[in-house]
């Protein structure tokens, strides 16, 4: 950890990364091919007829794909826990929004006053 020469005591400059191994570099090609494989699977699955099964398969695969991109392409795997917490909070808050709003949107019977 070197200290910025002109600012004794100023610690923040140390975070300029020391190339090239400040985080891991997975085999990107392998990840990419996996993603393509999953993607092909999604398209095939969407040809099925039961919408519920399609939903679960397709959405499940989307989550896997998103996680792969997050973990390896975006190097989340090597990022500090702080960032995991931040992304987790974002998802948690969306969950709250979904749960809190659900009873007032989905099961509600619509009724329109007939036009005079």
């Amino acid at each position, binding site marked *: 950890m070197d200290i910025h020469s002109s600012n*004794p005591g100023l610690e*923040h400059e140390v975070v300029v990364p020391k190339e090239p191994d400040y985080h891991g570099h997975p085999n990107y090609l392998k990840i990419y091919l996996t993603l393509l494989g999953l993607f092909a699977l999604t398209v095939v699955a969407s040809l099925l007829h039961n919408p519920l099964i399609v939903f679960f398969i397709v959405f499940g695969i989307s989550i896997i794909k998103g996680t792969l991109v997050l973990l390896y392409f975006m190097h989340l795997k090597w990022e500090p826990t702080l960032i995991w917490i931040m992304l987790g909070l974002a998802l948690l808050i969306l969950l709250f929004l979904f749960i809190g709003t659900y009873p007032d949107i989905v099961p509600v019977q619509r009724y329109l006053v007939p036009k005079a």
Partner: protein
Amino acid sequence: MNTHKKHGFWHRYFFSLDHKDIGFQYMLTIFFMVSIGGFFAYVFRMHLAFPDMKVPLFGLVTNKDYNMLITNHGLIMMMWLALGMLLAVAGNFLIPIMIGTDDMAFPKLNKISYWIFLLSVILMIASFFMPKGGLGVGWTLYPPLSVGDFGYNTPYKSFADRFFTANTFVLLAIAFEFTSLLMGGINFFVTTLNKRAKGMSLLKMPMVVWMINIANLLFMFSVGPLVAGTFMLLLDINVGTGFYDAYRGGDPLLWEHLFWFFGHPEVYVILLPPLGILAEIISVNSRKPLFGYKFILTLTLIAAVLSTMVWAHHQFVAGIDPRAATVFSIFTIIISLPFAGIILAYIATLWKGDLRFTLPMKWALGAVALFTLLGGFTGLHLGASVFDIYAHDTSFVVAHFHYTLFPTVIFGSFAAIYFWFSKFSGRKLNQTLGNLHFWLTFIFFNGFAFPLFLLGLAGQHRRIADYRQFEFLMQDPLPLYRKIATISAVILILSQFIFLFNFIWSLKRGKKETEDNPWQANTLEWQTSSPPPHGNFKVYPVVNYGPYEYNRPDKDKDFTPQNEI
């Protein structure tokens, strides 16, 4: 970096990269907005108490004017004063210097956020001068009304007709303001995490830095859905997407959910930075460590998470599922607990202290007292869903949120200004005028807001231009209450001119502050010259002590600067 050059007007007030200058730009812009909001308040309060009178400086108030005045008063005070003052101004002035660094992590981003903020202000002001007049739909912008006559019932209007309306401009202004605050928030967060002085661990940060950052993150997470919602409302107005149009299966309640999903955490976004400011001031002025630093921090984090689960208490009677309302009621009542803990910790700081009744301390004590006694406790009334059936949308609610927001936002800001003014300008504020300002504000704020409780209990509903149509609201003491409230509000507004005069005069002519550390405080901003040079510190501090180590038994003086060796 430390060479301080004299800059011209434009350089200082428009192109500066220095966090203090940008903070000052924000502050001046917000003073401008507040004066508009305050003027609006004066006009409609006068109209309420004396309905047929031509209000001086405005003229006769029609129903349309009245709706426009209350709407824009609310929007300006909530969005520009409260959020701007406590996130942008406090963050810009305090964060870099209190964590002992030279500037923000991204100074240019900081400058751009101010420009976007300025753009939002311009759009907001422009909305008053649209061909159909200002927006008059209530600051919550509930859709079928805020979509205006662009909905199902009316024939198609040209794009220009739709775009050049107050509705579009206000929504754009809000969107830009959120963008600005989000950019600023990212900047503060990164600055706090990455640029702290050597030795300043997270638990040695002053409470206000913590609070601003928690508020920022809370803002960032809760505002997202509303940004999407604002985008959708804009499209509803301008291209007719119909997201909130019941006649196309849309739902006005969706907006209410999105709005309050941000709107309630916003209350805590607004509340947390002043709580941090109060922590600083109370601790310094009672010469004692802040009681339970980690305890306060934990409670704040709990409250921040809880605050995203309580939003629907603004909608108890808005047609939401009553069973869901019960759940929200429980969470609402529970969220009073962490704040009770925080306030008690502040009071515990006072106990056995060596109190100094300086001006900032008076503001701080006033804020704690009013916020707890009349703001917080009436929150219990409204959080209990049953009484909310009656009190919702009455003056009781108005009084309640003025008692929560005014002590925190206004008292907190004034406490901060009286506390840090000498650091920021190198001059002292006039104490006599300051005392006068405090007492007038304190007394007449109560005089204005307390009658509203009684009016609300008598069943006075909100946002009515002329109460004479409702006989039960004209029975005997009620018009008197309205007059008391109005006269107090007018004096309250007038007494702010004392402050304005004091501020401007002291900035130019005030007594020179001879000491760098007049309050004998610990935190780092007091350990540099007043005003701080560009780059804040001549020698960057190395932190050895916590922020609140007053009266350590092993020291000779009763304070221990954080960077003392």
